[in-house]
C-alpha cells in the first residue's frame, strides 16, 4: 500500500461500501457512513481524554491519578460510564421536567453537529459547506441555549447563577472567537473549512505555510485559544461550573447519565473548538514538515488535537479561576481590541507584499498594542508583586 492509500483508506472503504448500496439509498448511506465514524471517534476521544486529564492532573499534582481499572487505569472511563449509567436519575420535584430533560440532549446534539464541517483528514469531512465556518458558529450558539435551559429548568439558585454566568460568558467570548477567526477568512478568502485548510497547504523548505507562522496568525491563534477556553468553560474560565463558588453551576441538579451527557457535551465542545483552531491556524490535517507527509493526514489531525488537549489540561492544572467581572473585562477590554487590531494587522500584511517590510511592521502591530493593553490593564488595577515591611 502506498502512503496515499493509507491516507485515503477511510475514503476508499467508504466508496467501496457504497458500491453495495442501491443507488436510490446512496445519499442516505453516504451520510450515515460519514456521520457514524465521527459519532464513534469523538466520544471515544472524550473517554480517553477524561482518563488522560485525570492522570495528567495527577502527575502535575505529584500523584498517580486513576490507576486501578485496567492497565495503568486506562479503562477508568468504562467504570465511570457504567457508574453514571446505573446511577439513579434524580430530577428535582420543582424542575421543569421537559426542559430539564431536553437540555442535555440539545447540548450534546449541538456539540456533535459542529463536527460536520471539520476536516479530519484529506477528503475527510462530513459536509463541505460553502459557509462552513458560519455553520460552526451557528451550531455553537445553540449550546448557549442548552446551557440556559439546563440552568433555568433546574429551578435552583446555584444552577441559575451558573447558567447566567455561562451564557453571559459564552456570548461575550463568541465575539472575540469569531473576530479572531475572521483574519483567516480574510487571508484564505473563503468560509469553507476545507478551502481554509487547502489555503495553508504547501511548504517552503520543509516548513509549512500555516497561518500561525505569521504575526497576525500567531496573535489570532492565541486569542482564538483564549476565547475557545472560555467558550468551552475550561479553567481558568470555568466560572459557570465554579465548584468552589456555585458548586457545579448549571448542571448541579443533574445526576446519572444526564450529568455524563453534560460532561460529554463540554468535552465535545472543547474538541470542536480545538479542531477549529487546528483547521484555521495549524494547517488542519497537514503535516508540519514536508518530509513527514507520508504519515496519514488524520493521524496529524488527532496528534494536533491531542497536543491542544494536553495544553488545556496543563492550563487547568496550573491556574486559578478568574472572577466574573474580570472575565467580562478581559473579553471586552482586552480580547475585543486585540482581535480588532489583529484584523487590521492582517489587512496590512495583505497589502504589504515586501516580506522585509511586512514582518517587522506586523509584529510591531501585534506586540505594541499587547504591551500597551496589558500595561493599562495592570495599571488600572495596580496589580503588582508587593514588597513587605518587617517589624523587629
Amino acid at each position, binding site marked *: 500500500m502506498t502512503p496515499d492509500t493509507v491516507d485515503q483508506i477511510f475514503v476508499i472503504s467508504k466508496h467501496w461500501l457504497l458500491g453495495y448500496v442501491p443507488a436510490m439509498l446512496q445519499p442516505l448511506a453516504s451520510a450515515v457512513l460519514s456521520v457514524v465514524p465521527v459519532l464513534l471517534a469523538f466520544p471515544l476521544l472524550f473517554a480517553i481524554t477524561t482518563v488522560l486529564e485525570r492522570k495528567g492532573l495527577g502527575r502535575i499534582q505529584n500523584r498517580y491519578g486513576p490507576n486501578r481499572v485496567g492497565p495503568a487505569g486506562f479503562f477508568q472511563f468504562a467504570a465511570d460510564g457504567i457508574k453514571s449509567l446505573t446511577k439513579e436519575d434524580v430530577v428535582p420535584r420543582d424542575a421543569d421536567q421537559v426542559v430539564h430533560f431536553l437540555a442535555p440532549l440539545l447540548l450534546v446534539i449541538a456539540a456533535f453537529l459542529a463536527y460536520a464541517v471539520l476536516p479530519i483528514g484529506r477528503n475527510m469531512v462530513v459536509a463541505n459547506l460553502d*459557509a462552513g465556518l*458560519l*455553520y460552526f*458558529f451557528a451550531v455553537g450558539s*445553540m449550546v448557549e*441555549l442548552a446551557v*440556559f435551559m439546563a440552568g*433555568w429548568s433546574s429551578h435552583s439558585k446555584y444552577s441559575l447563577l451558573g447558567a*447566567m454566568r455561562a451564557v453571559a460568558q459564552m456570548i461575550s467570548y463568541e465575539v472575540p472567537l469569531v473576530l479572531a477567526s475572521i483574519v483567516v477568512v480574510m487571508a484564505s478568502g473563503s468560509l469553507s473549512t476545507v478551502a481554509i485548510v487547502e489555503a495553508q497547504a504547501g511548504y517552503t523548505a520543509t516548513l509549512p505555510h500555516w497561518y500561525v507562522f505569521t504575526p497576525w496568525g500567531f496573535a489570532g491563534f492565541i486569542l482564538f485559544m483564549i476565547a475557545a477556553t472560555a467558550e468551552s468553560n475550561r479553567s481558568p474560565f470555568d466560572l459557570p461550573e465554579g465548584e468552589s463558588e456555585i458548586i457545579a453551576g448549571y448542571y448541579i441538579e443533574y445526576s446519572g447519565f444526564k450529568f455524563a451527557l453534560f460532561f460529554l457535551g463540554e468535552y465535545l465542545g472543547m474538541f470542536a473548538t480545538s479542531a477549529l483552531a487546528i483547521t484555521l491556524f495549524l494547517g488542519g490535517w497537514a503535516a508540519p514538515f514536508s518530509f513527514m507527509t507520508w504519515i496519514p493526514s488524520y493521524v496529524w489531525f488527532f496528534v494536533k488535537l491531542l497536543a491542544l488537549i494536553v495544553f488545556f489540561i496543563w492550563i487547568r492544572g496550573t491556574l486559578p479561576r478568574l472572577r466574573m467581572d474580570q472575565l467580562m473585562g478581559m473579553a471586552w477590554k482586552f480580547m475585543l481590541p486585540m482581535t480588532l487590531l489583529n484584523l487590521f494587522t492582517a489587512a496590512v500584511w495583505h497589502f504589504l507584499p515586501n516580506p522585509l517590510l511586512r514582518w517587522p511592521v506586523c509584529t510591531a502591530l501585534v506586540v505594541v498594542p499587547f504591551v500597551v493593553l496589558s500595561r493599562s490593564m495592570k495599571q488600572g488595577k495596580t496589580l503588582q508583586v508587593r514588597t513587605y515591611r518587617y517589624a523587629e
Partner: protein
Amino acid sequence: MTLIFLILAAITIVGTAAAMSFRNPIHCILGLTVGLVGLAMLFLHLGAQFVGFTQIIVYVGAVAILAVFAIMMTQGGRRLTETATKPQITPSLLVGGTVAGAVFAVLGWAMLGRPSTAIHSVQPVVSVNQIGQLLMHNYVLPLEIMAVLLTAALIGAVILAMPQERGKR
C-alpha cells in the same frame, strides 16, 4: 423535496404556535426558538446557506438568549397565570390580528401576483463570496450606515449600563 419542505414547515408552524400558546414565557421563547430554527432550515433547504446560518446565529444565539435573559431578569420566569386565561377580544388582540392579516395579505399578493412557474425555477446559486462582493461594492454605503448605527447603539448601551457611582466620585 416537498416532503422535507412539509416537515420543515410543520416544525416552524408548530414552534411558532407553541410560542403563542404556552403560558410560561420561557417555554414561549423556547417554542419561538424552534420556529426560528425551522425557518433557518427552510433557508438552508432553499440553498441560502449564509442567510440560514446567520438566522441561527442572530436569532437563536443572540435574540432568543436576550429575550430569555430579559424575561428572567424582570419576571423571574414566573408563570403568567393571571393573564391569557381566556381568549378575549382585547385591543391587543385586535392590533395583532390586523398586523397578521396585513402580513398575510402582502405575502399572498406577492405570491399570487407572480407567475406560478417562478416557484419551480432553478435555484439561484448564491455563494457567500457573492454576498460579500455585493456587500462590499454595491451596498457598501448602506452597510457602513448600519455599522455606524449599531456602533452608536452599542455606545448608548454602554453608557446606560455604566455604573452611576462614577458621577458621585
